[in-house]
C-alpha cells in the first residue's frame, strides 16, 4: 500500500504525543493546488496540515542543519533520494543520528508541474488533486479525473531513480518499492554526452553555461553545499568573484560539480530550481559515474562507508 496523507498525519501526531519528536519537517499544500511547500511543526495538533502526494518535490534534509540546537528530536519526512542526503549529512558529521527521527516514505515518482499542465492543457485553478496510480497519475480536475502516464510528466530525476525507497529510516510509512518500472540504463544521457568530441562538448557547455546568472540557487538548494563561506564568495583569495561572464560561469559550475563528486545523491534539486534550466545533473551524474566505476562506490547509502575522495589508504593503487 502506498502511503497516504492521512497515514502521515496520524503517524506524525503520534510521534509528537509519545514524545519521540519535538519538531517535524514535512510538506503541506502551497499557494495553489499544484504547489507544495515545506512545513515546520512544533506540535501534534498541527500535524493535520501535512500532506504526502506526487507534488512533494523538495528535498527537506538540508533544513536539518537549522535544527542543530533545538530541544528534542527533529522528525523529518524523506523520500528515497532525500534519505540519501541524510546519510551524507550523517557521514560528514553535520547532524547527530540521535537528534533525528527519520520518517521514510517510498516514492513512485514526483510530478513536474509544468509538464503536467502542458499535457493536460488546463490551468492550476482547475486541478483539485494529483494521486499516484501505479504507472500513471490520477489527476482530479473540476470536470472529472484524467489519467496521465507517469513517464510523460515525471521530474527528470525520477526517470533514472535507483532508490525509490528510503535507505535509512526510523519509521517507514507505506510499502517499500524495490525498483521503478521505467528506469533502464540510468546513464544513457550521460553516455551520449561523453561520446561527443572535445570540440562538441566545449560548444555544448559554453552554450549551456552562458545562461548562468550566478544566482546560486543550485548551491542554496543542495544539501551537499553547506560551507560557511563558499569559495565563490571569498575575496581573498579571489577565486571567481562577482563577474558574470563565460569563464567565471564555467569555473563556478564545474568547481561546484567537483566539490560534489562522490557526494551528490541525485535528488536533482539544483536542476529543478535553476531559473534558466541548465542541465546540471548531466555534469553531476557524469562525475558520479566516474566515482562509481573507479571506486565501486555510490554516495548516500551508508553513513559508515567513508567517501573515497576524502580517504587515503597507503596501500591504495592509484593507477599512476
Amino acid at each position, binding site marked *: 500500500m502506498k502511503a497516504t496523507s492521512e497515514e502521515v498525519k496520524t503517524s506524525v501526531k503520534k510521534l509528537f504525543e509519545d514524545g519521540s519528536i519535538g519538531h517535524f519537517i514535512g510538506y503541506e499544500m502551497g499557494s495553489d493546488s499544484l504547489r507544495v*511547500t515545506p512545513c515546520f511543526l512544533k506540535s501534534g495538533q498541527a500535524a493535520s496540515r501535512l500532506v504526502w502526494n506526487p507534488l512533494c518535490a523538495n528535498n527537506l534534509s538540508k533544513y536539518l542543519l537549522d535544527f542543530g540546537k533545538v530541544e528534542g528530536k527533529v522528525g523529518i519526512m524523506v523520500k528515497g533520494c532525500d534519505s540519501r542526503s541524510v546519510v551524507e549529512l550523517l557521514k560528514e558529521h553535520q547532524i547527530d543520528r540521535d537528534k533525528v527521527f527519520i520518517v521514510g516514505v517510498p516514492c513512485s515518482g514526483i510530478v513536474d508541474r509544468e509538464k503536467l499542465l502542458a499535457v493536460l492543457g488546463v490551468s492550476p485553478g482547475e486541478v483539485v488533486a494529483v494521486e499516484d496510480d501505479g504507472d500513471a497519475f490520477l489527476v482530479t480536475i473540476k470536470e472529472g479525473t484524467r489519467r496521465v502516464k507517469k513517464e510523460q510528466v515525471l521530474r527528470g530525476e525520477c526517470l533514472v531513480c535507483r532508490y525509490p525507497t528510503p535507505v535509512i529510516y526510523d519509521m517507514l510509512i507505506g510499502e517499500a518499492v524495490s525498483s521503478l518500472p521505467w528506469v533502464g540504463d540510468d546513464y544513457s544521457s550521460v553516455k551520449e554526452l561523453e561520446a561527443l568530441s572535445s570540440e562538441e562538448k566545449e560548444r555544448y557547455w559554453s552554450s549551456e553555461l552562458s545562461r548562468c546568472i550566478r*544566482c546560486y540557487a543550485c548551491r542554496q538548494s543542495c544539501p551537499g553545499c553547506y560551507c560557511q563561506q563558499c569559495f565563490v564568495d571569498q575575496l581573498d583569495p579571489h577565486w571567481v*568573484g562577482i563577474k558574470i561572464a563565460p569563464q567565471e560561469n564555467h569555473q563556478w559550475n564545474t568547481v561546484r560539480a567537483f566539490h560534489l563528486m562522490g557526494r551528490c545523491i541525485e535528488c536533482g534539486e539544483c536542476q529543478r530550481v535553476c*531559473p534558466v534550466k541548465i542541465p546540471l545533473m548531466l555534469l553531476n551524474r557524469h562525475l558520479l559515474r566516474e566515482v562509481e566505476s573507479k571506486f565501486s562506490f555510490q554516495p548516500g547509502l551508508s553513513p559508515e562507508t567513508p567517501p573515497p575522495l576524502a580517504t587515503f589508504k597507503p596501500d591504495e593503487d592509484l593507477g599512476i
Partner: protein
Amino acid sequence: MKPFLSRDNLLLWLKRLLQEYTVIAPVQAWDTVLFQPVKEVEEILLNYDVSALSPKDVFFPTSETLFTFERQGGRWEARPLPEIKKQVLFGLHPCDAHGIALMDVPFLSPPADLHYQRRREATTLVGLACSRARPECFCESVGGGPQDPSHLDVLLIPTPQGYILQVRTARGAALFTGFNVEELEIDNPPPPVTTPVPVAGITEIARDTFNEVFWERLADRCIHCNLCAYVCPCCYCFDIRDYALKGRVERVRSWESCQAAGFTRLAGGYDPRPSKGARLRQRFFHKFLYYPTQFKGQVKCTGCGRCVRACPVNIDIREVASEMQRIGSRVARAA
C-alpha cells in the same frame, strides 16, 4: 480605423529593424524563454507567455564593468566607456515595461547612474500585449494590465489577423519611417483577466505588520537562493567589486539580493539584520513600503508572477500581501 500590421508585415518590419538596430527579443533557450540579441527574425518568439528572466538586464546587466582603470605613470586612469549601439527591446509584456519604469526612478534620479542611463537612452521599447494570463499574473492589481501601453514606445496587440499598432512616442514613430503601415477597422481583443491580489493600500498598513511573528515563520522555509530578486523585473540591489588584472583594474557591478546572508554584514562581523525573518521582511517591506516612501510612488511590483513561479519553497508574494492586509485590518480594528 487603427494602424495595423499583418503577421507578414511585422516580420518584414523586424527584418528591416535588424539591419539598423541591435534587436533584443524573446527567444527559446533550452527549456526556457529568455531575452537575447537575435540575428534572424525567425528566432523571435511572437507568441510566448512569460520569459524566465525579465529583460531588466538590457539596462542593468547581470554584471558589467563600470570602469577599467589603467596604471599610467603612478596613477590610475579610467578608460573611456565603450559605445552602446542603438537597440530595440522587442516583445516585452506590459509588466516588464512597468518594471523598467520602476527601475528608472532610483537609477535616473540625480545623480543619474550614467551606466544605466546610456543603455536606457540607446533603447526603444516595443512591447507585446498579452493574449493569455498565467495563473500567477496579477498586473491589474498593481495598476497595470495585459494591454497597458504605459512606459512603452510602441505597443503591439496580437489579434487573429495580425497586430494592432499603438505608437506612443516620437522615438517609437522613428522605427516606422518609410514603412507602410495599413489601417484596419478592428476592435481590440478582450484582454485576459488576472486574479486579483489585495495590494491596494498595502503601503499604509505595512508598518503595522512589522513585529508580527509571521515573518519568522515564513522565513523558516526560505533557502536564500536569491531567485526572487533575480527574476524580478524591478529588483535592483547591486554589489561593486574590483578585479585586479595585470596593469589594470576592472571595477565590476553585479546583481545582488537582500536575501543573501551577509548582505548587511559589516567588515568586522556586526550584522544589523542577522535573522532570516528580518531579511525576508526586508524584501517585502522594500517593495511595499520603503520604495514607495523613498520615491513617493507606487509599490515596487509589476504583478508578473515570476517570483511565485521561481521560488523553490513556494513563498508567494500574493499570500504575503493577503496576510499583511489581514494583519493590518486586525490592528486597525483593535486600535
